[in-house]
């Protein structure tokens, strides 16, 4: 528990990806089985136990602390579990801390009534960081700024393997992942996964650069629309179906209508969309269905999901990844003709007479509400990762607006001494008074030199400080590029930008000439 507590503690405060990888790598190397496997579970898919933490804390709190002192303490801390961890009276300092594996075993074996007693005796045996980490562990999702993918990357790095190798095995393994660590430490063979549907690492596309477009021969490439959904891999075998996100997370639970119908023997690559009467709904509709553990009937009716397949990695147990795109596509079409399930179709392959025709088509994508085009080399095999020169995404040109910098916040890691994250606003008029309303936040798009200039501007034009944030005199215009504007009830302005970034710094432009909120709102309909 001690090592795990230290790890979680450091992870929460370490902003950089490399820093987090270092901490986890060292942990996975130094910690014995099965504890490290349970730690890995906590950092990835969650633990195979459930603990009614909130109820148990409420039960034991009453008997352990003075309610008035708890209330005052809770006010200073701002988080109930953290307050419990800090306020817990020390009774057995120096006692043996429980191991993660002990905790998992005891929780699994405990009946409904036994949880409070277990938690009490563990808290008694831990220090403040240990108590906090235990409560995080039992809550199921520690939320320490580590994605499942990053944790797997750390495991891979720790033992000199590729993370894709781990992804391929992942869904055939279960905590505490003894088979995985045995293989990584070369104590056993690579686990065999032939009987279950498992995740295959995806082939990803590069953004198309002007220079590449110039040298590109249309004969060599197939074109498709770029769909505005999320990438999904449907893997089905032996009556079991799994839907994986692009990072290998199993997200099928939120889409029971797909799991019900996707009964086949194949691994397919496609786009998850909300489709009504054959028309693709805006991304915001799909968002209603994402990041949910379960889904109601009403949600399924209101936001009907659909998968538009565009590639096949495996059909009938045969690995197709070595075939060319053209051949895989033929196999995919034949398969879908025969077995294509409801809630699915194929992404059309588009044909063009010339590059000029293709370019004209691309230029029209924004008006048609399409995200852009994909160009895929016809003779390329299906290659994991983001290999150069095979697949290109050609996004529609960005929209831009001139906005005024209102707040600046310090960045993280290498940017921790720079004000690098900017909140910007547009003009809104109410009762004849023009005010700047925040419409978005950007932290990219500028060079290091420009960052230094922006940082200097922020420091010289600060009005007020709020911790790491400063408000600045509203006089610097930033040209902001973004993909789209969406309606948003969560923002005061009523809008949210997709993928905003700073495209130019308009040192020359007076703030009074920046764009208005009305102009931005008009883009909501234009994007459809």
């Amino acid at each position, binding site marked *: 528990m001690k090592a795990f507590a230290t790890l979680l503690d*450091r992870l*929460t*405060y*370490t*902003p950089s990806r490399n*820093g987090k990888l*270092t*901490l986890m790598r*060292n942990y996975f190397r130094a910690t014995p089985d099965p504890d490290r496997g349970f730690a890995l579970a906590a950092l990835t898919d969650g633990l195979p136990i459930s603990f009614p933490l909130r109820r148990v804390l409420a039960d034991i709190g009453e008997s352990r*602390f*003075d309610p*008035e*002192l708890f209330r*005052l*303490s809770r006010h*200073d*801390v*701002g*988080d109930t579990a*953290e*307050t419990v961890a*800090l*306020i817990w*009276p*020390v009774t057995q300092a120096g006692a043996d801390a429980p191991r993660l594996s002990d905790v998992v075993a005891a929780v699994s074996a405990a009946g409904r009534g036994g949880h409070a007693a277990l938690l009490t005796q563990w808290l008694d045996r831990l*220090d*403040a960081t240990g108590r906090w980490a235990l409560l995080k562990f039992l809550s199921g999702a520690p939320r320490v700024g580590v994605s499942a993918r990053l944790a797997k990357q750390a495991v891979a790095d720790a033992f000199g393997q590729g993370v894709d190798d781990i992804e391929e095995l992942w869904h055939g393994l279960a905590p505490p992942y003894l088979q995985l660590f045995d293989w990584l430490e070369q104590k056993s063979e690579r686990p065999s996964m032939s009987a279950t549907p498992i995740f295959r690492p995806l082939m990803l596309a590069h953004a198309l650069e002007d220079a590449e477009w110039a040298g590109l021969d249309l004969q060599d490439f197939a074109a498709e629309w770029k769909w505005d959904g999320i990438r999904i891999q449907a893997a089905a075998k032996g009556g079991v179906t799994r839907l994986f996100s692009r990072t290998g997370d199993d997200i099928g639970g939120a889409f029971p209508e797909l799991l019900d119908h996707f009964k086949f023997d194949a691994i397919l690559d496609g786009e998850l969309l909300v489709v009504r009467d054959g028309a693709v709904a805006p991304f915001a509709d799909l968002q209603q269905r994402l990041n949910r553990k379960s889904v109601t009937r009403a949600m399924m009716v209101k936001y009907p999901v659909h998968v538009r397949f565009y590639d096949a990695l495996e059909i009938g147990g045969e690995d197709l990844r070595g075939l060319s795109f053209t051949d895989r596509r033929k196999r995919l079409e034949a398969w879908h003709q025969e077995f294509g399930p409801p809630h699915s179709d194929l992404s059309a392959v588009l044909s063009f007479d010339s590059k000029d025709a293709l370019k004209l088509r691309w230029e029209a994508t924004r008006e048609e509400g399409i995200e852009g085009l994909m160009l895929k080399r016809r003779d390329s095999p299906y290659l994991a990762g983001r290999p150069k020169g095979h697949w290109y995404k050609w996004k529609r040109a960005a929209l831009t607006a001139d906005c005024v910098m209102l707040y600046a916040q*310090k960045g*993280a*890691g*290498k940017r*921790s*001494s720079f004000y690098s994250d900017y909140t910007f606003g547009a003009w809104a008029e109410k009762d004849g008074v023009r005010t700047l309303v925040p419409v978005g936040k950007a932290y990219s798009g500028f060079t290091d030199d420009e960052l230094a200039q922006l940082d200097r501007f922020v420091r010289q034009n600060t009005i007020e400080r709020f*911790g*790491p944030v400063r408000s600045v005199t509203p006089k610097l215009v930033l040209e902001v590029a973004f993909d789209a504007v969406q309606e948003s009830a969560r923002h005061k302005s009523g809008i949210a930008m997709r993928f905003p970034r700073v495209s130019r710094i308009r040192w020359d432009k007076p703030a009074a000439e920046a764009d208005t909120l009305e102009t931005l709102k008009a883009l909501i309909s234009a994007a459809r």
Partner: protein
Amino acid sequence: MPVQPPFESWLRPDGSGLYCVPGDFHIDPHAAVPRAVITHGHSDHARPGHGAVLATADTLEIMKLRLGQGAGDSLQPLDYGEALKVRDVTVRLVPAGHILGSAQVVIEYQGQRAVISGDYKRHADPTCEAYELVPCDLFITEATFGLPIYRHEPDTGEVAKLIASLKDFPERTHQVGVYGLGKCQRLIALLRQAGFDRPVYLHGALRSMTDYYLARGFALGPVPSVSDTKEKLAGEIVLSPPSALGDRWSRRFADPLAGFASGWMRIRGRVRQRGVELPLIISDHCDWPELLQTIAETGAREVWVTHGREDALVHEVSKMGVKARALALVGREDEAE
């Protein structure tokens, strides 16, 4: 037994701070006064511009270094434990264990004894004299960390955390924010006790106080100034004022990793708010158990709580059957710890 005057009749807050009526002096006044007793050299206790100042010799030296002419018109040192008659009261200064020179003020008047704690701690500290308990009738205590969530873990563990981080991240400069008087020198001494013998680099603002500790004979090992090196100091420890963390000054270092040594680092929200990666819970104040222990051990029948989390401490002390009240004094900065 003669009737003893109520404490409020001879010791009470006024517009400048806590005032002792029969001795005609203030204790740690916020504003300039004719006669002041100063518990220690931190700027929220030792203000400039007083007339006569009574304090330990170390506190007076520190005030002279920090305030120059502002330290006071006439400075009178008083050794720990030595009794001094001031008008109708007797004053003694007793070690408070907070920083070098820090003292509790013991005032005796008409057979009653009041102790003003100043800032104090019970944890051992290699850079100052240990806290000394003085039984008393009235105990006036600080309550910076007056909540049960504040329990400082052993400082050896915190220093071990810092040294372990140097091993995890040898490519990064470990820049640790410290309060310039007391915390800085204590952290260096703790590093030396832990066997860390590499140089500990200092920000210019920490120079004069550290030099004073060195002159007073504390063995702090090599403590060069950052300004004297052109190196990026990867894998080294640099101490700076907290305000220099993540500031332009830190850009000279190798991917600086921000640490902060303070009792406040126990609260995660505060750590995140400051952008600190390596919080070190090292405090020069009492934690909650020490506050309660000290109040009980003084045997005081009345306790006044001056600054910090007064509500909680008054609540808890009242439960112990001791009369307690909050004493609102102006000008205390508990955030600076």
